[in-house]
């Protein structure tokens, strides 16, 4: 066991311990029906005690400068616990968009607040179709005339994770130069946010309307497509870790139940139909963990195969989680179909994660594209 591995183990166990205390099932259930859909006190503790929001923010911007591997460990644990928190939107989407923009001034302005946990943020890309394809973006931005970097933004965004609560909104809108990234303050005039009904209640999403909202250009005009592509790779790998963690949890629930539930005078796990279901889940979970962790490694090493590994992780973990979540309900029988049982919470998260960035048709083509096929 290398030093790095034992450090990762330590990180995992401290995050797990924290989440077991702060995000037990009752807490998740309470939060998923409240607004905001996270507990600001827990978020503050995650920042103060564990420094989680700053984990992967570079040190120059007030973070701890860890990389994708550490991020993966944390996200696996959050996925297991179904933590309701602005972590994914703020750290995995918005902060990564700022970093990918290469705009040092914008990073210096926003990242320290994010790292300390004081600022939450969201990234608004998709519109009504839910697609992340830059060609389908119709929100527009025009120069304000008022000064350099000042713009006015109009249009609609949807599926914006934590869009009603985030302090800072990063928005991709079209200019004459092409898709570009903008920063919008939550308090800006002309901005409206309404919560969307969601399949997965543990991940809040919003529809945003912009009516000539003052916005600041982040990075260079027309660079939004490139930034999005980069963010999407990082985000899908982060999501993959979350999915792997959730899938592992589903497997554990099933195996535990299969050992202890008796029917026909035998534990149901001694029936081969159930046993093989669990083995199939194990296979998927092992593949998912391998795919997501290898992708994180290759990101950390800056390996040239990272884009391929990211696409593999996204597809593999999406499939594994949906499969594990479905089979988990099946293994549990009737009880698994009740509102009271947590199985549906994982099912909802699994399905919604699979489709968050477009779903199988999209990620299959992304993979083939990256392989030059």
């Amino acid at each position, binding site marked *: *066991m*290398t030093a790095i*591995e034992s450090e990762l183990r330590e990180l995992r166990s401290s995050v797990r311990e924290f989440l077991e205390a702060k995000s037990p099932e009752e807490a998740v259930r309470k939060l998923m029906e409240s607004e905001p859909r996270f507990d600001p006190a827990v978020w503050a503790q995650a920042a103060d005690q564990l420094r989680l929001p700053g984990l992967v923010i570079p040190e120059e911007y007030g973070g701890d400068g860890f990389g994708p591997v550490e991020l993966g460990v944390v996200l696996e644990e959050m996925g297991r616990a179904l933590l309701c928190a602005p972590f994914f939107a703020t750290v995995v989407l918005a902060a990564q968009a700022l970093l990918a923009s290469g705009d040092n001034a914008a990073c210096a302005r926003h990242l320290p607040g994010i790292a300390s946990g004081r600022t939450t943020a969201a990234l608004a890309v998709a519109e009504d179709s839910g697609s992340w394809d830059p060609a389908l973006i119709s929100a527009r931005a025009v120069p304000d005339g008022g000064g350099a970097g000042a713009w006015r933004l109009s249009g609609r965004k949807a599926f914006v994770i934590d869009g009603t609560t985030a302090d800072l909104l990063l928005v991709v809108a079209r200019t004459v130069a092409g898709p570009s990234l903008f920063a919008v303050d939550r308090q800006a005039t002309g901005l409206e946010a309404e919560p969307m009904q969601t399949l997965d209640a543990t991940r809040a999403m919003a529809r945003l309307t912009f009516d000539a909202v003052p916005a600041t250009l982040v990075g260079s005009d027309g660079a939004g497509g490139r930034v999005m592509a980069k963010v999407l790779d990082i985000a899908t790998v982060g999501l993959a870790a979350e999915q792997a963690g959730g899938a592992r949890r589903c*497997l554990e629930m099933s*195996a535990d139940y*299969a*050992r202890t539930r008796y029917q026909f005078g*035998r*534990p149901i*796990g*001694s*029936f*081969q139909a*159930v*046993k*093989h279901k*669990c*083995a*199939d889940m*194990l*296979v998927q979970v*092992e*593949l*998912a963990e*391998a*795919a997501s*962790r*290898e992708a994180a490694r290759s990101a950390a090493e800056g390996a040239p195969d990272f884009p*391929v*590994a990211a696409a*593999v992780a996204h*597809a*593999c973990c999406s*499939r594994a989680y949906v499969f594990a979540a479905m089979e988990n309900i099946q293994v549990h029988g009737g009880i698994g179909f009740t509102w009271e049982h947590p199985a549906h919470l994982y099912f909802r998260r699994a399905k919604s994660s699979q489709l968050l960035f477009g779903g*199988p*048709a999209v*990620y*299959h*083509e992304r*993979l*083939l594209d990256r*392989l*030059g*096929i």
Partner: protein
Amino acid sequence: MEHDMQDFAAEVRRFLDAHAAKAPDRTAFTWGEGDDTMAYFSSLPPEEEREHVRRARDWQRIRHENGFGWITGPPEYGGRGLTPVHDLLYDSIESEYDVADTGTLSVIGLGMIGPTILAHAQPHLKDRWLPAMYRGDAIACQLFSEPGAGSDLASVATRAVRDGGDWVLNGQKVWTSVAQHSQIGLALTRTNPDAPKHRGITAFLVPMDAPGVEVRPLRQMTGGADFNEVFLTDVRVPDDHRLGEIDGGWTVALTTLMNERATVGSEGAGPVAAALSPDRLSALMRATWTWDDRALRARLAELLVDAMATEHLNARALRKLRGGVVPGPEMSVSKLMYGQNLTRAAHFVSDVLGPRVIADTGRWGTYAWSELLLATPALRILGGTEEIMKNILAERVLGLPKEPAVATTKEVRS
């Protein structure tokens, strides 16, 4: 450790550069050029098959003379005394070179039987056979399966009866790979019919030229005959050819089976790499004008996701080994996925090819896939069927309860 690995890798390259040419990369290729064979099993005519085995032995001897014949083996038997990681590293470097395929010797004999002999045989047997096997002089086979004992290996019925200093073996083995080339076979026999079935088994090393051993080729569905039936009729084996205790053969069998799982997953690198090569598969789609077919593209993507995730899993197992940690379920999962990935690839390609895989148009790289297609069912059976592997994962990794034992007729009667 890392430094030592680099030195070792350099030494391997020096050896290979001196004795072999670099192999063309099977994954990067030009459509229509070179060898298009996708055979997993050989199916060569007998003379060519013998020539193939001779080349395998020659290459094994050269390896051995240069210190790469048995990388993990103890030095007193001609081994190098290094770690499994050195072994894997050697394999991965050797795969870049064009060398004889040594599968006939290595998969079963060196991969499974050798370690079992090392762990359980008496010293004179080790002296007699281990150096010979790793030098390429002796080939070994696994005489486990019988018509009535496959997955349920502990039901072997071949009898061994004590006669003075010898044992007399009678029975029939089946599906025995490479028996036709073997000098020795590791046989599981029943020595105590009254003991519970796992406890009445004894293992013997049987010289394949002993009177009463008859090997009959068994044609397999690919058309060739890699495996055999082996009939044992009054075969006399001295007691010092016994491995392990009398009636303690199950422990011996477990050593072999454990190594089998690890070996099967790493087999057949050539056709496997080709069958799962994105370049080759996409070239095939272009050549057959199925390039735009959305349904096929989605299937191709799924296939590649599985193949690459399986590779990631292997990479992780390798890294664990390198760090001195014994891999967990990775090996069993890989073995399962390996069969499924190839099966899926073969069926994907046959859907792309359509009629061109049912009759040979003479076109490069089309009908050739029929050989892989026909071989894939074996990959879900040999070395423990898919179902048995799932039982093992569920019971040993997830801790699920075993199926209740069924009362035997004897127990019911008493």
